[in-house]
């Protein structure tokens, strides 16, 4: 008779080697695929940032031609948003951690999960193929019309942008759908909504935002492609179109997008703070509500990106008021974090340092952000470096710092090794100083009148010293990031074993081995509070499910055990489908519409083949 873990190992193990990675449906392996792929894109986006900063280090820079600058600058934005932060927070952190935090053995739709990774990879390669062919997107990440029309952008540049982002949205939508159903249905018995970890609340808010925010972007991009490729009229005024329609649809996506970027970071902060403050989050229900509220309000504020476009005064005032409302849920969270640290016994190890840095940078970026809700101020600073300063404090300071802290925090869980604490703390300070030095002078240079997206500038405006300090800061920042990755790489091989729970965290991922086995938990946990690992409560039911590829499903609100699901095993169809879709988009790009139609048919056939093998339960 085999032991329970041996039996589970046999049931859940996947093929070894490369083929195993190509056909995997294990959420942890998919999470790792996402992690390493997004790191590569982060590297590319970082090199682009350094190129931009080198070009702008002094007046009349000649490192990049104007055309090259446009493409590098656009791809920097597109990469960091669509190919780094979103797939890193949802794809890597969400995929790896969410099932562990809710006590499940996999995501609700494991093969769909694999598909969203392969589609993401396809869309990233598609976008970068454009840049490598020197036809990369060149109209800025929001690619305003008429700059994006055939007249002003005759090459394939804007087509790579539009098709690449539609492609990318398919992957993100599939991922968001999977998270919502997983959170609704696969929580461990006893985990009612009020016992869900705050990270899971944040992921739920992000997923709902994505489900409702991506369609406006898709519509916008489809309009653009129909106009560019087939000669429809949506944005050209001569034929009855409306140039502002592009901006409305874009920002109806674009502003929720900002909260999509920041919310997982808040979720990571609410995971790290209680562990190192050694107490539960202060105002737990308020923080959970605030996370959902941030996502909700995000849909009512898009007009504040358009204060300088001549909308009516009534419209402007509505959006100004709505934008000020965002302060309320944000401040609730900031005070909750600060009081949790203050009322606990904080231990300032590297992950908590990064969260401290996050709070400081988020407050600075938030204060400059709320200034834009004042219409006259916004109109004066629109399209200057002041805006660039603001959103880098939010997107780099507030969104990426928790990601970096989270890498240290969950590193022992994923690898089973401890990172090097001293050099981790040093890497925080280097990164923090680099961030301030890079982005703070942008406020000043913006107020002095430097506009964003210029490829060079003349001497004598009083901008030179600030720009030089930004460039020096950018290289310090890059050094800080390299220290982090060097630390993690070294620790992966040389770090001391960490054991399952080195920090005594409160949530379920710390109750299983490091790294977690393919089946996550030998026995499905029973949950009695949001911090089950601190309860050590033994539930009355023992749910080992060691006779099949199974995970329990519970009721949506109360988390009562409802049924046992048979989960699908590894499958090659997701990657095949993603390949077919990639070819489909290449054909659309090159205007071979008939061949594109054929590949849509191929994709349909693959879907049929996919569903021929049915798991026993849906």
């Amino acid at each position, binding site marked *: 008779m085999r032991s329970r873990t041996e039996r589970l190992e046999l049931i859940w193990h996947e093929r070894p080697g490369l083929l195993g990675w190509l056909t995997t449906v294990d959420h942890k392996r998919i999470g790792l695929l996402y992690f390493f792929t997004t790191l590569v894109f982060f590297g590319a986006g970082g090199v682009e940032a350094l190129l931009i900063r080198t070009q702008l280090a002094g007046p009349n820079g000649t490192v990049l031609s104007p055309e090259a600058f446009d493409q590098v600058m656009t791809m920097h934005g597109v990469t960091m948003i669509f190919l780094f932060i979103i797939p890193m927070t949802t794809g890597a952190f969400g995929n790896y951690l969410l099932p562990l935090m809710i006590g499940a053995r996999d995501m*609700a*739709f494991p093969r769909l999960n694999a598909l969203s990774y392969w589609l993401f990879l396809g869309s990233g390669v598609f976008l970068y193929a454009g840049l490598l062919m020197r036809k990369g997107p060149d109209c800025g990440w929001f690619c305003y019309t008429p700059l994006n029309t055939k007249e002003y952008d005759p090459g394939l540049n804007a087509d790579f942008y539009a098709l690449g982002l539609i492609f990318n949205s398919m992957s993100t*939508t599939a991922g*968001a*759908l*999977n998270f*919502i*159903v997983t959170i*609704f*249905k696969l929580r461990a018995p006893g985990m009612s909504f009020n016992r869900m970890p705050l990270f899971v609340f944040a992921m739920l808010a992000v997923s709902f935002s994505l*489900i*409702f925010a991506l*369609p*406006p972007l*898709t*519509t*916008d991009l*489809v*309009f653009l492609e*129909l*106009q560019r490729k*087939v*000669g*429809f*009229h*949506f944005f050209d005024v001569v*034929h*009855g*179109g*409306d140039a502002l*329609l592009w901006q*409305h*649809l874009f920002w*109806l996506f674009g502003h929720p997008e900002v909260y999509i970027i920041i919310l997982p970071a808040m979720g990571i902060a609410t995971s790290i703070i209680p562990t190192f403050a050694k107490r539960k989050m202060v105002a737990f229900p308020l923080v959970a509500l605030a996370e959902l509220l941030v996502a909700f309000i995000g849909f009512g504020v898009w007009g504040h990106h358009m204060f300088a476009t001549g909308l009516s005064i009534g419209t402007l005032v509505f959006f100004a008021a709505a934008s000020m409302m965002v302060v309320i849920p944000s401040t609730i969270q900031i005070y909750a974090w600060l009081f949790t640290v203050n009322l606990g016994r904080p231990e300032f190890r590297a992950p908590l340092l990064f969260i401290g840095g996050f709070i400081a940078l988020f407050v600075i970026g938030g204060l400059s952000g709320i200034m834009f809700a004042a219409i006259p101020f916004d109109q004066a600073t629109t399209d200057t470096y002041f805006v660039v300063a603001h959103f880098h404090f939010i997107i780099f300071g507030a969104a990426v710092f928790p990601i970096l802290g989270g890498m240290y925090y969950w590193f022992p869980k994923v690898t089973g090794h401890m990172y090097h604490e001293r050099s981790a703390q040093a890497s925080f300070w280097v990164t923090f100083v680099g961030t301030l030095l890079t982005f703070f002078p942008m406020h000043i240079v913006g107020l002095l009148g430097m506009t964003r997206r210029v490829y060079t500038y003349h001497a004598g405006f009083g901008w030179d010293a600030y720009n030089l300090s930004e460039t020096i800061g950018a290289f310090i920042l890059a050094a800080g990031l390299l220290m982090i990755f060097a630390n993690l790489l070294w620790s992966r091989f040389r770090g001391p074993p960490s054991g399952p729970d080195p920090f005594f965290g409160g949530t379920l991922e710390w109750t299983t081995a490091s790294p977690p086995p393919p089946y996550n938990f030998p026995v499905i946990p029973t949950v009695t509070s949001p911090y089950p690992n601190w309860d050590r409560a033994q539930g009355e*039911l*023992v*749910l*080992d*499910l*060691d*006779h099949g590829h199974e995970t*329990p*499903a*519970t*009721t*949506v609100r109360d988390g*009562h*055990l*409802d*049924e*046992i*699901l048979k989960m699908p095993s590894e499958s090659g169809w997701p990657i095949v489908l993603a390949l077919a879709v990639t070819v489909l988009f290449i054909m659309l790009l090159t205007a071979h519409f008939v061949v594109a139609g054929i590949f849509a048919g191929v994709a*349909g056939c693959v879907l*049929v083949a996919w*569903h021929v093998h*049915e*798991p*026993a*339960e*849906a």
Partner: protein
Amino acid sequence: MSSVPYTQRVAKPNGWWGMVVFVATEATLFGTLIGSYYDLRFKTPRWPPTGVPDPKLAMPLILLGVLVSTSVPVQLASVFARAGRTGATQLSLLVALVVQSGYLAMQIHLYVDDLHRFSPQQSAYASIYFTLVGAHHAHVLVGVLLEAWLLLRLFGGNTAYRAVGVQGAAFYWHAVNALAVAVTLVQLSPSL
């Protein structure tokens, strides 16, 4: 042996939830299309512009009524599938499928007819008209393919997995029909 008694499921199955979220994102897509229609409309003095005929009312409204009525057989199929009545499920699906395919064929005929009378490359009105209506037809086509696939699978017998599939497809069709009402009313709005 797991020591937990497995009884009848209380919550909706995962597949149904997946379909609900998918429909939510699709409905948002149609929402933005309709929003764009009205954005363009209120920027244009004459809608439809000179030289483009007003949409005809009778045929699209009749077709809409026919399409919406298919919610009944589709819902019946869902109920029969859960009750394990495979033959009745297939029959309901077939009835729905025939009516919906007829609807789609007739609509494609009208669409091509419209294309002969005015071109989407002519004006913003024509562009959004053909995009909106075309998106709706694509929506119907996906529903038809989904149903045909389930109908064929049911020849291999009913399983819990397929019953959930029928339940999801039924929800999808109710959403298609609700959106059909919205799209048709917007499409016909210049003549209403």
